[in-house]
């Protein structure tokens, strides 16, 4: 079952679309699930499908198509590092290597305490701040250096 909070959020989203086209809200609905749980279990995809009156498989298509939906638990804080051209030219390789050594995990993995997950990302459209990473797809952190990364991780450790 979707939580009451998610249902309320979806209902709000549904007001933007015609009543007979509820499936327009599928991307938002999946986002709400991920915001709450950190990832999207398949049971919740089925619940979203039932809530929006669309086939389960259609929800699954959307959830698997977009990179930013996590199909497995990715830790409390998911760090997504851009490895596209601008970032790589500005040292994304070093960022990745440093993050991997600090956290002891590689791309697609989660730390043993479940606190951090690391993902490889695509261009975030802010190349002027390269190299970049995002925290939980929400917070953009640019001009990364070892010190900056330490600072970001220290802040996240606190939370």
């Amino acid at each position, binding site marked *: 079952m979707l939580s009451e909070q998610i249902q309320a959020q979806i209902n709000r989203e549904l007001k933007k679309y015609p009543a007979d086209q509820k499936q327009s809200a599928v991307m938002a609905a999946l986002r709400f699930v991920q915001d709450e749980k950190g990832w999207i279990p*398949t049971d919740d*995809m*089925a619940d979203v499908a039932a809530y929006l009156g669309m*086939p*389960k*498989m*259609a929800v*699954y*298509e959307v959830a*698997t*198509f977009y990179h930013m939906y996590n199909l497995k638990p990715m830790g409390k804080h998911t760090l997504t590092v851009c490895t596209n051209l601008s970032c790589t030219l500005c040292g994304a390789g070093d960022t990745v290597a440093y993050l991997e050594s600090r956290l002891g995990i590689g791309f697609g993995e989660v730390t043993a305490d479940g606190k951090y997950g690391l993902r490889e990302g695509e261009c975030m459209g802010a190349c002027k701040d390269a190299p970049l990473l995002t925290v939980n797809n929400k917070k953009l952190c640019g001009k990364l250096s070892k010190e900056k990364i330490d600072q970001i991780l220290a802040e996240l450790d606190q939370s």
Partner: protein
Amino acid sequence: MINIEIDGKLIETGRGSTIMDAARKAGIHIPHFCYHKKLSISANCRMCLIEVEKAPKPLPACATPAAEGMKVHTHSALAVKAQQGVMEFLLINHPLDCPICDQGGECQLQDVAMGYGATASRYNEEKRIVMHKEIGALISTKEMSRCIQCTRCVRFGQEIAGMMELGMAFRGEHAEIMSFVNSSVDSELSGNMIDLCPVGALTSKPFRYTARNWELSRRKSVSPHDGLGSNLAVQVKNNKVMRVTPIENEAINECWISDKDRFSYEGLNSPERLTKPMIKQDGKWLEVEWQAALEYVANGLRQIANGAGAEQIAALATPHSTLEELYLLQKLVRGIGSGNVDFRLRQSDFSSDGKQQGAPWLGMPVAEINSRDRLLIVGSFLRKDHPLLAQRVRQAVKSGAQANIVHSSDDELLMPVANNAIVAPDNLVNMLAQILKALAAEKQAKPDASVQGIEAGSVATAIAKSLASGERAAVLLGNFAQQHPQAAQLAALAERIAALCGAKFGFLGEAANSVGGYLAAAVPFGGSVQGMNAAKMLAIPRKVYLLLNVEPELDMQNPQQAMTAMHAADMVVALSAYKHHASEYADVLLPIAPFTETSGTFVNTEGLAQSFKGAVKPLGEARPAWKVLRVLGNLMNLAGFDYDSSEAVRDEVLGGVDIAQRLNNTLQSVSIPNPQSSILSGLQRVANVPVYSADAVVRRAVSLQKTHDAATPCVTLHSSELKKLGVQPGDTVKVSQDNASVNLTVQADDRQPAGTARVAAGQAATSGLGAMFGTITVERT
């Protein structure tokens, strides 16, 4: 109409049609994979790229609308280069394992690669691999790596089957066709995806690796299952049916067949087949020669006829028997002097016998369903009883028709339903009366005398409004309505509703020969000798029963009563393709040929007689039933049993007969006693015949029996009834009817009206119970 030119040929084509449509009309072949005439355009395989003059680049023929004066080249240098380029891309990730591929020899990719592919690939890198998924007992996805992502299977699910079970997950080179997290594909039309798949990615699980396409000979046949009469290609190797595929017939089955038509052939090769005539002596079954068996039967019949009287002889046949078989059975029985012959085994109300002006039929050609704009479907498990008719209704609804349902179970129809009147079985008559009353008000006509005292409720009014607002309405009665104890009243009311709104009025034929049985006179009225109907023959037990294809515990309205009658009879002769329960009560078992091993005729629900020839030789000593009945007629010294072919029998029945003249749904003088609501107290049984339990062949089709539709029956109640009983879903409960009881699992489903219990018929687990309608009790164990 607009004019375009393709490869120098001037073609006239409809406005809005695509270049592909125009080319197909003119017989010009454009290679394609994702395009299919019955599916929406997706234009994702790009194989149909062609050159259009003045267009800067090649265009996909399937998605480009034809425009006036367009000049198209399908084989110009530009077009061919584009097609070859696409082919090279498609083959990059394709395994090219044709020598071990089931699709080899009938593969679109193979064919097109022969025409447009290079002899060797320039791609030396690793090919991608797609892991296979388990999607049920019918379709294999073992070689998903072969998929070229045409999405035909996905679009079929969405548009034709009505449920999107397969989809394309992930993206780009990771894209995969799959179902939702290990769920199976349960559509009753799923097998068509195998035909649609242009490569060997979706293959038939039962057929895999059993034969190569070029080893098979294709024989035309007709489906013996539902009333549609789908055209089949029975594919044969070494005198064995290896698989069944559709033959396109736009007026009947289009290019589809249901899974029942497709996979039930497994039942033809079942180890339960009866291959030798058998006689029971001193409680032991002996295999005997045909002559001995038939003489035994003839002697028995003669003795009873001369002793106890011919009216002690009763004959029951399934409506899945051929026209010839049904005709000869009634001719034999009437020749002996008995009129006790019937094929309407699951019917319970015979009061319209003699009042119906002809054979009940669909009331219109099958293809006309698509063009209806208002439908009232009464008492039908539509999707499971008539998978392809349901598909046609779905298409009608898609193009704007309103479907109104009156039924005792709100089954998922996979289409938007305008109004749903779900009531207990004993309220169906009342509901139709309400609709008639409301419709009369709507049409400002004087309401029928029988519904004067009826108050029309809101649902009935909504249905009446819907019907009144249409131009091409249809009122159809399903199997449930025809088997209902008040079937004649339901039909009479439905007929009046149809008359009031100018609708077509029809019966959805339960089985392949539901119309043919009437034409063959295999009914106790109308023939030279009158007799008892199917229900009466069991209620007043007879001394001799001739069973043609019948398994009384599964095929009859009241299996309990049927079994009592069988056990009490002096002689039971079972003409059957299978060894079945008859061995317990029968005296003679005569092996007869199923539809692939005999010639014959089925008259489908629109009254179309379709004859077919045997596809293979009868197994063992089995013989076509028409021959068995003919010899029995000879042994009984009856006149007129000198046929030398089944065609001769057919011509005797249908020769010079205009079938259309014999079809008539009009009911005369059926009285409708003031239709009350809620006649019965207690729980009422709602019995469906599960789709894979409806006839003898499909019951033995092993793969179909592994599907969800063939699951062991449970008893389904409204959740409030569960609460009353104090049981949880999944608990075992005692279900009793007519002094017999069985233990079944209970399930809650609020689509079932309160006061009803859904317990399937036609299944071994429930065959100990009584009639398909009536009160039933459910208790805690």
